[in-house]
């Protein structure tokens, strides 16, 4: 599937979203408000993480709630390599992502035997185990105190004084993740995963190696999630088990994707653009008296989406309202 052909398949919604995002990003040189830039970076990063999760959760139908482990592996691997061998985080990033991918394949090999909710629980357990390991494996991770990224600004060090380069890098990250999602929709792997999602046994009888397909999807998902982990480490400049191997990092990408549109390339982006600023506003407005209120709102919105718009907010803006509702958006359109 050539690049040009993929580009033409991008619907108008995607164009709008990408344009909006690009404008925000391009407007960056003219904006100096660090709070605004931080919010933008947060949106872009979470949109990327959500999109990464979407590859295994949406396209492969494997709802993992343990992706925080991959995020943490990414953050810690590049940081440890930086601290011990002075390795540029841009290189360490790929080491972390590769490690995450290997771990994902190992975990998948064990957990894919489990069906439905049991798989979800197993990934949840895995995420928690990773969290505990990070706290206790002090020799590598520095334990609960975490690790500090030395401040030494420069491109090679992936560290910058201003927020602006981070905005551009986060945007690049999002583009890469979005492109991976799009690839899932039009590639052989993507079609096979759609079949597996619908009816795994029927797919297998048609020659689809479901084992391999699911492992590959989980591996790619973990790889991309770990890249986001390194970015986070370099942006915040301090990492600890509670911020990286956390429950939030496991749940939030799933939440954003489901709200935005599971199994679609635009869904994770849509979910982030709507939910992240909203949670920030709620935290500001209600944070003092009702801290944690934004989580309650998250919950309510999630329930509402699941009940009324099961395919996510993306459905509202889908081009043809007459398209029948179902679980996937995979379509070969008439030329």
């Amino acid at each position, binding site marked *: *599937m050539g690049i040009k052909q993929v580009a033409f398949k991008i619907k108008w919604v995607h164009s709008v979203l990408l344009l909006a995002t690009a404008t925000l990003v391009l407007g960056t040189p003219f904006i100096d408000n660090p709070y605004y830039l931080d919010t933008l970076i947060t949106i872009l990063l979470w949109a990327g993480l959500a999109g990464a999760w979407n590859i295994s959760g949406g396209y492969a139908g494997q709802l993992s709630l343990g992706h925080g482990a991959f995020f943490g592996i990414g953050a810690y691997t590049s940081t440890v390599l930086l601290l011990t061998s002075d390795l540029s985080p841009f290189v360490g990033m790929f080491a972390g992502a590769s490690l995450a991918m290997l771990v994902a394949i190992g975990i998948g090999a064990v957990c894919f035997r489990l069906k439905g909710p049991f798989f979800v629980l197993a990934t949840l357990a895995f995420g928690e185990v990773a969290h505990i390991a990070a706290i206790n494996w002090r020799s590598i991770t520095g334990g609960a105190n975490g690790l500090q990224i030395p401040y030494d600004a420069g491109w090679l060090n992936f560290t910058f004084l201003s927020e602006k380069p981070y905005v551009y890098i986060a945007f690049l990250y999002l583009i890469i993740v979005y492109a991976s999602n799009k690839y899932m929709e*039009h*590639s*052989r792997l993507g*079609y*096979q995963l*759609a*079949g597996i999602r*619908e*009816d795994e*046994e*029927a*797919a*297998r*009888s*048609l*020659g*689809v*190696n*479901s084992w391999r397909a699911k492992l590959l999807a989980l591996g790619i998902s973990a790889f991309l999630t770990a890249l986001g982990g390194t970015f986070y480490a370099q942006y915040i400049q301090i990492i600890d088990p509670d911020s990286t191997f956390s429950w939030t990092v496991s749940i939030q990408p799933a939440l954003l994707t489901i709200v935005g549109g599971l199994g679609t390339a635009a869904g994770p982006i849509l979910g982030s653009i709507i939910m992240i600023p909203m949670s920030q506003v709620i935290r500001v407005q209600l944070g003092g008296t009702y801290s944690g209120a934004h989580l309650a709102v998250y919950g309510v919105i999630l329930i509402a989406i699941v009940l009324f718009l099961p395919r996510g907010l993306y459905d509202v803006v889908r081009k043809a309202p007459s398209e*029948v509702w*179902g*679980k*996937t958006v*995979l*379509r*070969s*359109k*008439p030329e």
Partner: protein
Amino acid sequence: MLELQNVIKKFGGLFAVNDVTLSVRRGEIVGLMGPNGAGKTTLFNLLTGFFPLNSGTINFKKQDIRFMSPEKLCEKGICRTFQIVRPFGSITVLDNVLIGALNRSKQVDEAREIANENIKLVGLAPFTYKEANSLTLGYRKRLEIARALATRPELLLLDEVMAGLNLTEINEMIDLVARIRESGVTLFVIEHIMEAIMSICDRIIVLNYGSKLAEGKPADIAKNSEVIQAYLGEEYELA
């Protein structure tokens, strides 16, 4: 092409398939008949990697296929349809068949070509971009066949494709089966509809309670008193 020797499949104490020996030669259309519960679908499940057998041998093109997975068997050239159709409901007919075509062809565009050909072959061209869930039963059965054909099988196992169809649809299906044979595919067919199975098959094998009851040309089977007894009970023996 396909050889089963003394195949036994037990579920606990029940012999679902009891010492069955049969073969299918390349280019044939062989029918598999028998009252409900005779073990026909179980036999198909053994042939397509869904159950492991208890004893016996199964060889396809001289290879032992007893312990191969469904996807491996599809690669080897055996594909099946399901008695209760299992379409990929929320995606289009084209995408359904495309997934089958991706078995042989690694390129999506090429697979789409193959898919379109097979959709035309089974007469589903007007429904190409419709969601599979929107099809009626007769068309779903055809989709099932198109999807299986897209995997380029050498041996196609059809499990009761005529069930639930009206007379017109049955005749159309009979034509389709003939066309499939013409395209070079060997067929092994489970069927209950007498007119259909008698008219399309070169040879028929009858199972009863898991054992092979009779084997022969359709005309001979129709006259076989044991077969008649198995289906209709002992009091009925047509003169």
